[in-house]
């Protein structure tokens, strides 16, 4: 015979009540703290375009010379956590972690030129960007044109085509976390602010157009 308490009707409804409690809490957090409806136990999956895979994280270091996009591969804050619920506290935490790092800032084109000397994780990351794909296409195009010049035959049109989807604007300056102590001869850039942004996505079926929008942004002053 089960104890008296385990025969009480309330006991029979305890687990469904827990589901309702957590799902209600998820709806609150999704509306007040940027939690994506897809996550958090509220069963909002397949209800909106605003899922973690359609959210984008950007961290910028503001220096006297301008802004640089931080490549956050070395930061310890989990990207899944940030994209799942980018509330002010989480974005501030990223800002503080970024501020505590040592950074080296380079023009973006220079980074692509020096890709072979970068750490493995960033090399793999950059290698799959459309910017690198565009570079590969341009090199292939130059070779095909040079070959056509030397042989006198017309170049293969497939080899000289450049994919226009790769022609998107890219940041002019990027920042990499540097090991401490810094390598000799390198200078610590002066960072005035760290700005962290998370972007969401909207889809307009009439225009067939996807538009990113700023979901949340936090700027940390380092004065």
């Amino acid at each position, binding site marked *: 015979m089960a104890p008296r308490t385990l025969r009480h009707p309330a006991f029979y409804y305890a687990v469904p009540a827990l*589901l309702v409690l957590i799902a209600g809490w998820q709806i609150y957090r999704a509306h007040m703290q940027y939690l994506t*409806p897809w996550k958090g136990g509220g069963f909002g999956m397949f209800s909106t375009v605003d899922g973690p895979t359609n959210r984008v994280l950007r961290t910028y270091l503001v220096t006297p010379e301008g802004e640089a*996009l931080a490549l956050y591969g070395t930061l310890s804050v989990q990207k899944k956590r940030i994209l799942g619920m980018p509330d002010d506290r989480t974005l501030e935490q990223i800002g503080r972690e970024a501020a505590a790092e040592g950074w080296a800032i380079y023009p973006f084109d220079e980074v692509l030129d020096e890709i072979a000397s970068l750490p493995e994780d960033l090399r793999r990351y950059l290698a799959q960007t459309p910017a690198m794909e565009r570079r590969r296409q341009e090199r292939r195009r130059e070779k095909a044109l040079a070959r056509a010049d030397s042989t006198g035959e017309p170049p293969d049109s497939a080899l000289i085509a450049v994919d226009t*989807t790769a022609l998107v604007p890219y940041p002019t300056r990027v920042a990499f976390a540097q090991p401490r102590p810094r390598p000799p001869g390198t200078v610590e850039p002066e960072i005035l602010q760290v700005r962290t942004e998370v*972007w969401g996505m909207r*889809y307009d079926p009439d225009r*067939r157009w996807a538009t990113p929008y700023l979901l949340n942004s936090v700027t940390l002053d380092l004065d």
Partner: protein
Amino acid sequence: MADAPHVASLSRWHRVRTAALAWAADFSAPERRFDLVATMTIVLLVLYTLSTWYMQAGVLCLGVFALLHRPILRSALFWFAVTFILAVGHYQGWFYIDNHKYLITYWCLAIALSRLAGEPDRFLALNGRLLIGLAFLFAVVWKLISEDYMSGAFFEATLLQDPRFHGVAEVVGGASAPGLQENVQQLRTLRSFGDPSAGFSVSTGARVPLLAQVMTWWTILIEAVVTACFLWPKDRGLSRWRDATLLAFILTTYPLAPVVGFAWVLTAMATTQCDTRRFRYWPVLYTLAFLAVMVSAYLPFSRVKGLLLP
């Protein structure tokens, strides 16, 4: 005498049919229900819940041990241990784990508590029915309050940008494979270092908008019907249709979006509560659905498109 082969064939068919029905009746017997459901749950846990090392070590060891020594499946302590590991593991990643992982944790807790309840089978049937009904209720609420779901934008964007749906976007929606690839590439550009303030044009297909509307309204309709059937007072009105509607949902949803973990926890929960007084073979049908979902995960729509497209 000319009819003899025909009669023999009929008699053989009758014997096969009788044996199959006897097996199905035995399989669906109420006294075997808990073992069937517990085994379904363990298979689900072993194959689809392992995300951290301690979940791998804990759930895998406990799960495999239970498969080798079935009597432990009836122990409350065993299910509390499983629930504890799941709860700790899922709590660490509450903001990114899928919703069915929450449901699996609730379900294991319900199994554990059922072993302490005065009427374990009634406890489990009630919890299975309510957990399904409530999960679907919240899914419907989210869809109703989501502007981009109700406008059809969500399914249109998903068909065009989510590679899991590209098979159906091509075969039914008439989208082109290079166009869909371009959409994925555009998203990838944005996720890497592309300018987040710049939008992009999305390549579509002639019938994609219509397909998106059909998927939008079918999904919310079937989910609302399942909600009503499972939350309706038991044995009355709509409640009598709950097993048929849930099976319809499973068989129309998961071949397109093969989320095996979700489908399996639904079938395990549904098996505990099915009404075998009206139709005794529901457990057999749920078990077949359990297997069909697994097969569909390895044979998604995108893989069979080659057979359908010239």
